[in-house]
């Protein structure tokens, strides 16, 4: 009897510990982000108040109004930045996925001499940080006259994302049995048709997860964008964040408002494809 009660007590304690631990972990993950969201609605005076104001007395949309109206402090043309970011990230993601699909398919289906060497070579290009590339690229782009254009940024981001997309997609195509495509070819499909009608739909989850990673990388990249974009033509949002800083002061409220604008699309997109994400990583990463 006593043993049973003890056992039950221990189980309850464990459940409670699990719940508390989960709650704590989730709070730590969320708090800094929620703090940013909250600050975007508070007047600057209150953000900077000393002693701190814990319970907001006044919430308003001033920072958003200033941001979208392009008025007030600095007058940051946020909408243009948003548009630039969107065009550059989406286009580069789509191109990176197409290139990655071609490459991943080649790795998964053909015998390639020196396969693992090529593979490691591709991954090594990821070891080069943006800072190291930014200057030589700046010189090259200057010669070609594509500094501060959407085209230039898209090109860079495609290159940034291709190795990783190939890696993920390769693993996914390997999960698709070869016989499936062969059967389709026997039934009269061309190889091209077999790919689009049979293999592509099966590997879709992996491609979705590669896509979200590519999108997030381009959406959030700073080091290269800060060198290769100069004006409203192509400046992206991470570079735009810098507009809220000046030599000695920081416009926290405004920055938080832009931060919210940056996170929202990423949040929506991740929520939409997150089911595929776990599946994609399971197959793509490990069994590849």
């Amino acid at each position, binding site marked *: 009897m006593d043993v049973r009660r003890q056992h039950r007590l221990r189980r309850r304690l464990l459940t409670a510990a699990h719940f508390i631990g989960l709650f704590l972990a989730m709070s730590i993950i969320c708090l800094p982000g929620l703090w940013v969201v909250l600050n975007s609605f508070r007047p600057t005076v209150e953000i900077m108040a000393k002693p701190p104001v814990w319970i907001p007395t006044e919430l308003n949309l001033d920072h958003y109004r200033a941001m979208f109206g392009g008025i007030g402090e600095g007058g940051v043309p946020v909408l243009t930045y948003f548009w630039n970011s969107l065009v550059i990230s989406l286009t580069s993601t789509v191109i990176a996925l197409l*290139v990655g699909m071609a490459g991943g398919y080649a790795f998964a289906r053909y015998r390639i001499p020196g396969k693992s060497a090529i593979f490691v070579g591709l991954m090594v290009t990821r070891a080069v940080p943006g800072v*190291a590339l930014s200057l030589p690229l700046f010189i090259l782009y200057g010669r070609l006259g594509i500094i501060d254009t959407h085209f230039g940024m898209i090109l860079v981001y495609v290159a940034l994302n291709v190795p990783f997309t190939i890696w993920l997609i390769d693993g996914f195509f390997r999960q698709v049995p070869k016989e499936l495509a062969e059967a389709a070819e026997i039934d009269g499909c061309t190889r091209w048709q077999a790919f689009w009608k049979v293999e592509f739909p099966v590997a879709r989850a992996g491609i979705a997860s590669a896509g979200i990673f590519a999108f997030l990388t381009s959406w*959030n990249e700073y080091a290269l964008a800060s060198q290769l974009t100069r004006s409203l033509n192509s400046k992206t949002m991470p570079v735009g964040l810098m507009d809220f800083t000046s030599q000695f002061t*920081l416009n926290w409220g405004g920055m938080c408002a832009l931060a919210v604008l940056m996170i929202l699309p990423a949040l929506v997109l991740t929520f939409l494809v997150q089911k595929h994400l776990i599946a994609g990583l399971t197959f793509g990463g490990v069994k590849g």
Partner: protein
Amino acid sequence: MYRMRLPPWLVLLMPAFVILLAVVAIPLVLSLYSSFTAFQLTRPETITRWIGTFNYEKAIGDANFWAAFGRTVLLLTVALNLEMLLGLGLALMVAKVTHGQRLLRTIMMFPMMFSPILVGFQFKFIFNDNVGLLNNALQSLGLTDVAIPWLVDGNLAFIAIVTAEVWTSTSVFAILILAGLFAIPQDPVEAARVDGCTPWQTFRYVTLPFLMPFIYIAMAIRSLDVARAYDIVQVMTAGGPARRTELLWTLIGRTGYVDARMGYANAMGYIAILLSIAFTVHFFRKLSSARTSLGMGD
């Protein structure tokens, strides 16, 4: 008539090769060349002044460079291990939940959506000694009366940077480990339980070996990221105070752009890239040996 036919795999890989060649390889060759010259950003004509391996010799003899090198390795070790342990804990906790797991997974991925530069600003704000969230909280709770100079003191600043890194990237580990937990076959786990293993033994000798490939993938991805860490540190401390949080790439970035000694910066950059390649190759090796031991390899 002779018509050249490329093998189909080459045709398929061609776009990837062309793009990587244009955007990564050619600039790298250019900077490799400039690392053997006395190239200064402010005087473009210096790019033709060949000085051999002088820059490399200078980097190898430079105490600041080795300090930054050591600090990068330290950050890599501390951050990666912390992230691995926290990510493992988080994934185990989330995997146990039955209701609302989808929501928890999305929350778990929340930090991944933050741009590194945004994370930098966010934590700069949180750790601000005057109006920062952390000091305000500590003071309001009466835990301390003085403002703790988080980003001003060298050691505290390093802790602050590690915190920011861990906050953003624990989710990478958590997601990959969670994916691993879902992929584990249930039979061996049940067999272990039937044979009388304690929960700890089941975890240590059955679950963990299955998770190792996933952990190594996360390590490989993250070691590349940390070895080229720049944005977060640049925003939070810019390598300061007095070089106490200087990492390889903040040092290189400053040497190149602020001091305009691009040739020297590129030489240091090459040594740094070799470091990250070494780490990646190391984790890929471990990954494939873990795979073969589980019978998942090719």
